[in-house]
């Protein structure tokens, strides 16, 4: 319990240790700790930023998808309309073509029927004349055959 030189020895040792600690122990440790703290803070900030960017991107993507959906619906609607129009147009053309073809066919048939009838009429008259001349050659009995011929002519006219 005596107070002696130990007092001064400890006091000097204290200063030496504080000096050593300040110079060689404190700075490297604190620098390393602070560097890591900064790294962690930076990382957290970056993560937050990334999250924000992701949110924005998600929103944008959702908008794009919605836009694309409406566009697609519009395109489908217009395509349907166009398709219907095309079908209708085709039907109309087909109809008019049909009537035109039918008309032309009808007129041709009529013409041919008329021509055939005219030809027949001519042939019948000549046959009738030939038949008449043949009959006349055999027996000319105008009274007896006049009615017959007349009847024949009437029949031809009627047909």
């Amino acid at each position, binding site marked *: *319990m*005596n*107070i*002696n*030189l*130990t*007092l*001064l*020895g*400890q*006091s000097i*040792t*204290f*200063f030496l*240790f*504080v000096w*050593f*600690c*300040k110079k*060689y*122990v*404190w700075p*490297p*440790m*604190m620098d*390393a*700790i602070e*560097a*890591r703290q900064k*790294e962690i803070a930076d990382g957290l900030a970056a993560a937050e930023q990334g999250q924000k960017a992701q949110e924005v991107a998600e929103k944008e993507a959702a908008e794009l998808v919605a836009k694309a959906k409406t566009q697609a619906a519009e395109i489908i609607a217009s395509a349907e309309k166009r398709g219907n129009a095309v079908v209708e147009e085709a039907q109309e053309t087909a109809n008019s073509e049909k009537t035109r073809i039918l008309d032309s066919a009808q007129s041709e048939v009529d013409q041919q029927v008329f021509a055939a009838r005219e030809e027949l009429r001519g042939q019948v008259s000549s046959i009738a004349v030939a038949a008449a001349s043949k009959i006349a050659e055999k027996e000319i009995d105008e009274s007896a055959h006049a009615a017959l011929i007349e009847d024949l002519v009437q029949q031809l006219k009627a047909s």
Partner: protein
Amino acid sequence: MASGNGELTGAGYIKHHLTNLTFGQHPDGTWGFAHSAAEAKEMGFMAIHVDSMLWSIGLGLVFLLLFKRFAKGFKKEQPSRSQVAVESIFQFAQDSKNSSFTPHAKNNYIAPIALTVFVWVLFMNLMDIVPIDWLPLLAAVLNGESWSQISGTGAHTYMKVVPTTDPNITLGMALSVLVMIVYYSIKVKGAGGFVKELAFQPFGPKLLPFNLLLETVALLAKPLSLGLRLFGNLYAAELIFILIAMTFSAGIGVGLLGGFAQMGWAIFHILVIPLQAYIFMMLTIVYLSQAHEHH
């Protein structure tokens, strides 16, 4: 060491444990180790407690070199558990400085001082937990004492292993704190400012001698109480451990009781040891903070 044959009395055992290994000048002018407490006392101021100094410096070096190694081998990613523990002690010193040191002044020495004081005092206090006879016994054996000397009256190898039970050690540190208080007071406020603070406060220039007396006492009381508080706590702890250790020679029943008492006292000191280190560190910061403040 207290033997049953009554050669070594309880008082002798206690005295042996409370005597430092002292190297100094004998009254006849020669230098050497003191061979008894009385001889150590006769040496007066020109003596040094070799055991206190060796344990103190040794534990301080353990602290510095250990922590330096952690600082050097710092791993940013996947730190080891011990690194995290050391880191938290650094952070603790830094936080203590931030919370208690005046924000009006900047001093990069405060936090390292806090760290040094805390860990060093903690390590010195921790020696208190080591069973009281182990290291002195080892020292005696290494010194070549025979068993009959150790257990008898011939025990002359002194070895106090808890530096903070030596008032020289605690007051020595307090003296350093006082030097720093004066140094920073003069550095921050100038010599005139420091003297003015001592002379003109708190009652104004008219009562200058009274002020001077009051302020000087206040200035000196700070480190004195700082050193004596630590010394008193650890000295009392040591004394109780010595008293408990004496029961080990008083038969198996009492000895067993003493064993439990020692365990309880040691567990209690797991609380006291860091607390005293913390108080010493905190007060050091606060005193230095006051030295930086203008009144």
